[in-house]
């Protein structure tokens, strides 16, 4: 027996067996009611068995329906289909069964009623009367014949009783003739069989009746043969003993009359019995039919529920599998244990899920690879020394790297997703106006075609925190067939340092040429002028001599000035190798400042040193030049001030790995427009000076890998902030 057969028997077998047993029981009950009264003692047992069995099935049905209801409430997969199928089949089945039940009950009742009608009852009654009348006539005739025969043989009965009874029997054609004493003792008898068997003894009550000289004539049935006879008992007077002797004559009733009589009696008896049992019969048949109806409905419902569950099981499995897949479990594989369409469907589902899982895995791998690529490119873009900004086709900011934010001086990451033109209106982006002014025309629709055609570049200068930044923009479209991922890319290059370096290189070259071309002739000029004065002073008139001396002094002074200027150019152009050493910055500054102070007067220079400042690694002579230039610059700037004041502040705590030195004066300050070129050569607005002081300062700071920043505004003095690196733990 294979698994399917076992499962089928488990699901339907017990129900089929129980239903079959109960139907058999009801069938037997039906047969007992109609045809087998000898098994009547089993009727109640079968009735109890049927009722208990039906109740058990009904209990099972209620339990099954409750289970279905709970599953319906829990929204178990496939339960709605099961309920629908069961309900539909129940309706389809219940209606014809109920109709059949109704007509069956009506038919049974009508059939039972039709058994009994007045004509049948009257016919049976008439037949019975007819038979009885016939038998009464026979009895009466037998009695009369017996009386006549007894009268003819009366004298001989007392004298020769044996002979007489024999004669009497022959004469009457009777079966048996017997003569008794009055007390019932047998005197003589004769029977038609000629044997010695004793006659059929009448009862005591008959002897008593005869003693009172009353004759008896009746039809009797002999047991156990059920043979019907006519028993005649008449009193015979014995004149010798003066006694009454009972004479019994038994006549056989013709067999056909007996058979008809039995038939009529039986028919009448059964008719009366059935007539009485008509109502109980109807009740019993109705009960049996009701139980058949109930059993059929209950069994059918149980069968249908089981069948519907079996039918929807693959649907339920498929729904559960689909739910698992929807929850992300693509390893779902359902067992294919059927060879019908559902089996094909489940197999197709398994194949489909396998393909989906494979495709999903491929997508996952591709996604991972894409993600890796994306992260890689993000890392690349993030670590680019160029700023990168991308916009979508709607000019919304899509990506921006850190360098772009750094170059533009604003963190644009929070603004990702906003339209580019809206960013321009942000309150904290006024310094980006040149940037936006350069960009916006590029996004105008009329220029888009050109943008699509070729990349573009443009240089803009922005001013942020008193610093000028020169930015080179490279723009291009991102070609894509999908508008969602297309857009624009803008690469930002901060070329400020490059420009400044180029400028510095140019000025250095100029300085070197000037130093080379001018310095060499200066000494011969000076010496020649002094020689002219020496040779001609004594030979000229005093006026001419005074004139010569004045001219010669002018030449010498101007040569000195030019030598100073040339020396400044040499200093600017010359980049000697750094002689790095550990220096106490505070001490160095104090030493330099002391040159600008008298012993008893601290002057206008105020020092605010951070005592915690560590030693720095730097070239002392270059630093001296740096601070000399700044202090000299500050002192010259405060010459016009009523209360001149110069502050030098060192601070090691503001930044963890930096030392900041501020040189502040309360001079007239630097005009805003001068901020951009203040560190460039010949950027001075002073009548005297080389115009290279701050340029040399900036150059030295950059040689020390430091930064210098000008913090100034109109009429509020000037503040130079120098930032130098501290030594790390390794002394670097």
């Amino acid at each position, binding site marked *: 027996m294979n698994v399917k057969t076992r499962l089928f028997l488990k699901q339907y077998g017990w129900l089929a067996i129980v239903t079959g047993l109960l139907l058999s029981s009801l069938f037997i009950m039906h047969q007992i009611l109609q045809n087998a009264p000898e098994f009547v003692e089993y*009727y109640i047992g079968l009735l109890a068995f049927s009722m208990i069995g039906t109740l058990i099935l009904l209990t099972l049905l209620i339990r099954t329906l409750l289970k279905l209801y709970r599953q319906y409430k829990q929204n178990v997969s496939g339960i709605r289909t099961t309920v629908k199928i069961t309900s539909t089949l129940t309706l389809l089945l219940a209606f014809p069964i109920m109709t059949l039940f109704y007509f069956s009950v009506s038919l049974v009742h009508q059939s039972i009623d039709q058994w009994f009608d007045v004509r049948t009852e009257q016919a049976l009654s008439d037949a*019975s009367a007819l038979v009885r009348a016939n038998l009464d006539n026979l009895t009466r005739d037998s009695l009369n014949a017996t009386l006549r025969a007894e009268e003819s043989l009366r004298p001989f009965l007392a004298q020769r009783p044996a002979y007489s009874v024999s004669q009497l029997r022959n004469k009457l054609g009777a079966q048996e003739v017997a003569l008794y004493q009055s007390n019932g003792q047998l005197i003589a008898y004769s029977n038609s069989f000629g044997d010695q068997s004793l006659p059929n003894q009448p009862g005591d009550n008959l002897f008593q009746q005869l003693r009172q000289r009353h004759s008896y004539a009746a039809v009797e049935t002999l047991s156990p043969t059920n043979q019907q006879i006519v028993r005649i008992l008449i009193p015979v007077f014995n004149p010798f003993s003066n006694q009454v002797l009972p004479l019994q004559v038994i006549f056989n009733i013709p067999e056909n009359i007996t058979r008809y009589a039995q038939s009529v009696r039986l028919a009448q008896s059964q008719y009366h019995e059935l007539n009485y049992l008509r109502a109980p019969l109807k009740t*019993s048949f109705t009960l049996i039919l009701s139980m058949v109806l109930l059993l059929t409905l209950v069994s059918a419902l149980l069968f249908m529920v089981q069948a519907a569950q079996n039918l929807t099981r693959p649907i339920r499995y498929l729904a559960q599998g689909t739910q698992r897949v929807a929850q992300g479990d693509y390893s779902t594989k359902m067992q294919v244990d059927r060879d019908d369409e559902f089996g094909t469907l489940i197999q197709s589902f398994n194949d489909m899920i396998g393909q989906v899982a494979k495709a999903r895995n491929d997508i996952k791998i591709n996604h991972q690879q894409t993600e890796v690529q994306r992260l890689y490119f993000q890392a690349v873009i993030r670590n680019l020394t160029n700023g990168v900004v991308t916009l979508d086709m709607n000019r919304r900011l899509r990506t921006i790297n850190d360098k772009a934010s750094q170059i533009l001086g604003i963190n644009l990451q929070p603004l990702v997703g906003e339209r580019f033109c809206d960013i321009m209106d942000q309150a904290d982006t006024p310094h980006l106006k040149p940037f936006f002014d350069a960009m916006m025309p590029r996004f105008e629709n009329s220029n888009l075609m050109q943008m699509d055609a070729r990349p573009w570049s443009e240089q803009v200068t922005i001013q942020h925190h008193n610093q000028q930044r020169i930015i080179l923009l490279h723009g291009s479209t991102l070609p894509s067939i999908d508008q969602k991922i297309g857009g624009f890319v803008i690469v930002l290059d901060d070329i400020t340092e490059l420009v400044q370096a180029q400028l510095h290189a140019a000025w250095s070259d100029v300085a070197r040429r000037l130093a080379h071309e001018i310095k060499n002739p200066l000494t011969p000029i000076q010496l020649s002028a002094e020689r002219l004065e020496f040779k001609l002073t004594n030979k000229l008139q005093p006026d001419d001599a005074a004139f010569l001396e004045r001219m010669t002094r002018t030449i010498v002074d101007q040569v000195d000035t030019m030598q100073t200027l040339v020396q400044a150019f040499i200093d600017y152009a010359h980049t000697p190798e750094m002689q790095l050493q550990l220096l106490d910055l505070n001490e160095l500054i104090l030493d330099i400042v002391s040159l600008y102070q008298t012993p008893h007067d601290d002057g206008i220079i105020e020092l605010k040193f951070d005592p915690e400042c560590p030693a720095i690694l730097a070239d002392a002579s270059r630093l001296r030049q740096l601070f000399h230039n700044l202090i000299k610059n500050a002192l010259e700037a405060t010459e016009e001030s009523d209360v001149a004041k110069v502050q030098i502040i060192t601070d090691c705590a503001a930044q963890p790995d930096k030392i900041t030195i501020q040189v502040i004066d309360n001079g007239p300050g630097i005009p805003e427009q001068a901020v951009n070129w203040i560190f460039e050569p010949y950027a001075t607005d002073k009548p005297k000076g080389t115009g290279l002081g701050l340029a040399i300062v900036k150059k030295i700071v950059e040689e020390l890998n430091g930064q210098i920043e000008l913090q100034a505004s109109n009429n509020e003095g000037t503040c130079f902030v120098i930032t130098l690196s501290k030594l790390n733990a390794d002394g670097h």
Partner: protein
Amino acid sequence: MKCLGGLVSILFMLAAQPAWSQITLLELVDKQFESTLYMDAKAHIQLSEKVVEAIQHEIPIQFITQIELTRRDQIFIFPYNSQQTRIDYTTELSYSHYDRRYKLHNLRNQNILYFSQLEPALATLGEIQNFPITSLNQLHSGLRYKLKLRFRLNYWSLPAPMFTQALLDADWRFKSEWFELDVQTGRRR
């Protein structure tokens, strides 16, 4: 006066067919002779209309006569009755329209009696004469015995269609109470 009241009640019962079957015990005596305990009893049986109607429709009705002799015993202080003798016999009462007579058939000894009226048949059914119960040798003097008699209708013998009705109708599960008589052993009559 008490006898007169009983007679009146019997006459009243005879006058009309009662709605429910009733059995009234008229006499219950024991007799002991020739080492045997006998019983005489006479009961007046009245059947309900339903039962009579069924009989007259030739439905044979069986009555079971139950006779029981119990002994009063005691274990420690706990009294109980133990059954000494139990005799059940069935008598079938039927009617034949053809013969126009009632038939009383004792299924125990196969005796058959015919009656043209129902009342004598029921009187015969309720009358027990010289019925041997047990040998006196089986009884112990000094012990207390009790003779019990009960009649009941055997609804298990009814035709199958009537079972449903019999299960629901007390008339068809009719049985009398136990009529009891204390028996004194060692007495001769």
